[in-house]
């Protein structure tokens, strides 16, 4: 029988704020354990939370970015009650029934196929603390409360995903827009982006959903893809044996590359939500969202499309040139200053991207100003320096000395091309006169000898002759003998 997997995704990203969501403690990563806490995030008696405006704004920015049809008129907070060592208050302040926004969407692409994935809701809430386990001690957890109260955005998708590859593409698309819009740094290694897929399998063509299981402990896109593939196979195996999938939360074991059910007592899920009495409702969402919508930066998809149509560059080039707002701005500045989008794109994709990869280039503070790179591109176009010399000698020199003008660099390195036709003609004439045998052979049809003549001219000029002009001159002179 053929089966079909139904995948939904619950993603949490850390909102890019300086302070926590309900108190003024820092959210900085990497602090010493338990040095970023206060009575509010520790849940000490009498402490009162106050909502961070920035967290609301970033949440609404996500709602606008993910094209939510409904910005909830009266968003409210609730307490989700449970006991766990990473939760000092004994409850998490989250949103329940009245999230910030609903009914969004995002486009993904898998193997050239476009697909729209629905977003059920967006809400903001606080993170819990971090539990650390040491190998030798099986009975103790070490608790760091620094993360308690760090603002999170929860993004819950509709069950629109069907394959591990689609799930991967969804996460990548989400990460891209979230980072691009400055909502979160979404660094999975720092725990700033986490995802919990839920999976069910049904025979293809069936309307009814199978029993779902949820996956946890996934810390990379690759693990997400693998874990989902594992879980789909596991469900199919159970169904093939005529058995029933049991509802469960599965924990992914990266080392063993398998998922096994978490042991949780049933009543652990009795959260007894009730309205948070210490926080007021948020009713400014619609006005704020309208304002944010007006100021929203162009998103990557739109940017790539505009680069392709506006500058006539290839989609692959556009992908690199629009990979971050900083790179995109740089590309456009170079393209406008040199007047050739195609050349600008070639430089970004080739030379600049390698410099970035080698750690010699900070995209947020380019070592070579856009105008300078544009000037270098113009020097190549004008034939003042060869493309190879520009890439391999001039650009590295400019990279090392940020103040250096390309003109200066070309001269200092002695790389100025000879483009003066009269002077080159004299050299060409000398070369032709010195090689009568080759001239005869060329004229009899051995056209590949042109390269030999070019080489001779280059040798005479120490490689500085403009090859385009030399080629033209040689062809003309050799033909008209």
């Amino acid at each position, binding site marked *: 029988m053929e089966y079909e997997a139904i995948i939904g995704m619950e993603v949490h990203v850390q909102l890019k704020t300086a302070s926590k969501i309900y108190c003024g403690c820092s959210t900085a990563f990497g602090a010493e354990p338990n040095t970023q806490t*206060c009575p509010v995030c520790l849940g000490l008696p009498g402490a009162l939370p106050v909502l961070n405006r920035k967290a609301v704004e970033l949440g609404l920015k996500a709602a606008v970015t993910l094209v939510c049809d409904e910005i909830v008129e009266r968003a409210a907070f609730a307490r989700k009650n449970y006991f766990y060592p990473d939760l000092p208050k004994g409850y998490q302040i989250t949103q329940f029934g009245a999230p910030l926004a609903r009914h969004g969407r995002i486009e993904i692409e898998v193997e050239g196929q476009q697909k729209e994935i629905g977003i059920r809701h967006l809400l903001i809430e606080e993170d819990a603390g971090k539990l650390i386990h040491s190998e030798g001690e099986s009975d103790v957890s070490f608790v760091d409360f620094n993360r308690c109260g760090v603002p999170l955005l929860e993004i819950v998708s509709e069950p629109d995903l069907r394959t591990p590859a689609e799930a991967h593409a969804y996460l990548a698309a989400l990460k891209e827009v979230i980072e691009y819009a400055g909502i979160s740094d979404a660094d999975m290694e720092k725990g700033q982006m986490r995802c919990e897929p839920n999976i069910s399998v049904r025979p293809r063509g069936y309307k009814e959903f199978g029993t779902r299981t949820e996956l946890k402990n996934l810390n990379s896109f690759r693990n997400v893809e693998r874990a989902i593939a594992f879980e789909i196979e596991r469900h199919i195996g159970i169904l093939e044996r005529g058995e029933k999938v049991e509802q469960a939360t599965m924990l992914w074991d990266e080392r063993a590359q398998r998922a096994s059910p978490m042991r949780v007592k049933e009543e652990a899920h009795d959260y007894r939500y009730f309205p948070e009495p210490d926080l007021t409702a948020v009713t400014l969402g619609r006005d704020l969202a309208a304002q944010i919508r007006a100021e929203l930066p162009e998103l990557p998809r739109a940017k790539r499309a505009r680069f392709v149509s506006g500058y006539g560059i290839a989609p692959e080039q556009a992908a690199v040139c629009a990979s971050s707002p900083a790179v995109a701005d740089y590309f456009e500045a170079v393209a406008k200053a040199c007047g050739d989008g195609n050349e600008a794109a070639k430089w970004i994709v080739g030379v600049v991207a390698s410099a970035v990869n080698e750690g010699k280039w900070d995209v947020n503070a380019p070592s070579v100003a856009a105008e300078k790179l544009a000037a270098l591109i113009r020097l190549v176009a004008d034939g003042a320096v060869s493309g190879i010399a520009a890439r391999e000698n001039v650009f590295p020199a400019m990279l090392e000395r940020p103040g250096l003008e390309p003109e200066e660099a070309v001269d200092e390195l002695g790389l100025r091309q000879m483009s003066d036709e009269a002077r080159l003609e004299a050299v060409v004439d000398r070369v032709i006169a010195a090689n009568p045998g080759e001239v005869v052979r060329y004229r009899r049809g051995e056209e590949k000898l042109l390269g030999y003549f070019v080489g001779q001219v280059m040798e005479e000029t120490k490689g500085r002759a403009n090859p385009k002009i030399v080629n033209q001159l040689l062809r003309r002179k050799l033909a008209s003998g």
Partner: protein
Amino acid sequence: MSSGREDGGRPGADPVITADEVRHIAHLARLELTDREIEWFRVRLGAILEYVAKLNEIDIENVEPTSHVILMENVLRDDVVRPSLSRDEAIGSAPSSRNGFVAAPRIIETDDSGVV
């Protein structure tokens, strides 16, 4: 524990709240109760629930749900970092701590470990 309503209402009919429900709630709150206490709470909680149930008689067709009694909205603070507690202040009252961490009994949630 003597009051006019200690039978939890309607003797013989379905109790408003069962002993098992009381046990469940007690567990959620991590309270250990004796059977006597459970019965006592069953009666008391039943009385409270029945009393509150009177509200069901009111027509609330045109009333907005109330989550707050104070009429304030949009109370927000700017995203400004303020000093935190020192680590000693933060975890000094924890029963057990080590290397700056609070040490808590471990809860394991996989089925492989054999530990709950």
